[in-house]
């Protein structure tokens, strides 16, 4: 297997992306017509000293409520696409390092072999000082399906909690997950 061209290296998004990349309603994946259980996702991006990262950009990618990705390679037509859901969101952190998305709880999607993955949201993190995109996942702490998720099973048990968003008290379904670039409880990041 010979490679014809070398891949272009990654570089930091830098501190000055705000007027170019985030866009209106990029943090809102679900509107009134989107099917499924509406949820809010929030958290903070923190550096190795626990200080907020106020110039990060976060992207999320997820399946719809039925567990179908809006992409040609997910051809499982038995799970309906939702014309009101693209599955992609993008936002920047604010001065306190906080981000927030409005979306729906994703359905399960297949994993390797015959496995099914627990509901999850893929996260890409960019920022000044991040030469490479950092990739992680959000899982729902209240999901029983986590117990047999094939990807969580690859994460050392004592670090799995860094991927589990906790439901906050209150009526609206709001889940919180902080992304820690170092220090105690450093978030698990994945090599894809």
């Amino acid at each position: 297997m010979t490679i014809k061209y070398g891949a272009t290296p990654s570089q930091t998004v830098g501190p000055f992306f705000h007027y170019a990349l985030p866009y209106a309603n990029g943090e809102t994946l679900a509107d009134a017509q989107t099917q499924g259980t509406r949820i809010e996702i929030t958290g903070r991006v923190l550096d190795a000293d626990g200080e907020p990262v106020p110039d990060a950009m976060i992207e999320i990618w997820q399946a719809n409520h039925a567990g179908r990705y809006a992409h040609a390679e997910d051809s499982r037509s038995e799970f309906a696409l939702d014309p009101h859901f693209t599955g992609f969101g993008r936002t920047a952190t604010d001065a306190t390092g906080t981000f927030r998305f409005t979306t729906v709880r994703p359905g399960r999607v297949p994993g390797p072999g015959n496995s099914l993955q627990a509901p999850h949201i893929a996260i890409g993190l960019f920022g000044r000082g991040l030469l490479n995109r950092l990739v992680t996942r959000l899982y729902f702490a209240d999901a029983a399906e986590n117990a047999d998720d094939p990807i969580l099973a690859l994460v050392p048990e004592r670090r799995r909690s860094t991927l589990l968003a906790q439901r906050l008290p209150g009526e609206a379904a709001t889940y919180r997950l902080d992304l820690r670039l170092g220090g105690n409880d450093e978030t698990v990041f994945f090599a894809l």
Partner: protein
Amino acid sequence: MTDVLAYRADDGNTHANSLSPAYGSTVRRSPSQPLVAIPHTLTEVTGPSSQVLRASLDDLTKIGTGEALGERIIVTGRVLDEDGRPVPNSVVEVWQANAAGRYIHERDQHPAPLDPNFRGEGRVVTDADGRYRFLTIKPGAYPWKNHHNAWRPAHIHFSLFGPAFATRLVTQMYFPGDPLIAIDPIACAVPAAARDRMVSRFDLDVTEPEFALGYVFDIVLRGRNATPMEDKHDH
């Protein structure tokens, strides 16, 4: 059961170490634990379609009533995978400083003038051959506070999606012959053998007479493994 065709693993010789201390901001913003390798699933081999982002904008020079200041340039190229296949219908976003080295950003403290006629950001979708094209102004170098007398080489920021979540790439394009590249901690964080892949080339055929110089910047995204990678189970 769903077997997916995985994207090829990083060769270890292309990307920077996330911790690259010469670039000071990496020190507290890079994981200390090793990354956990995971197999590609539907989550990683799917990704947002080109309809997700906003309308196309390929002229960074037009926003005010007048002409943007600086050296007008055309930046074009192809988005390919490692096997040389074009990546069509894929979003390419760009942003940059103006000719004086100043960004349209409140946190940019460089005392160089803003240009009310320079937009400084744009986005297009690649055509069937993976080609993109922008009209812009050659960006200026600008100082930053990483170390004493630190200057970023002139660069254009690029953001690409490619076909999948796994192929997402944010990078920077540099200009040929720029003496600042060799002393820039961000460019030099990349392994030396791969650094030139971020440098565009001047092209007289892209250059338009009496109008704008032409630069070509081809971008290579991860290719795919020849065979599905779901070999880890025994059936």
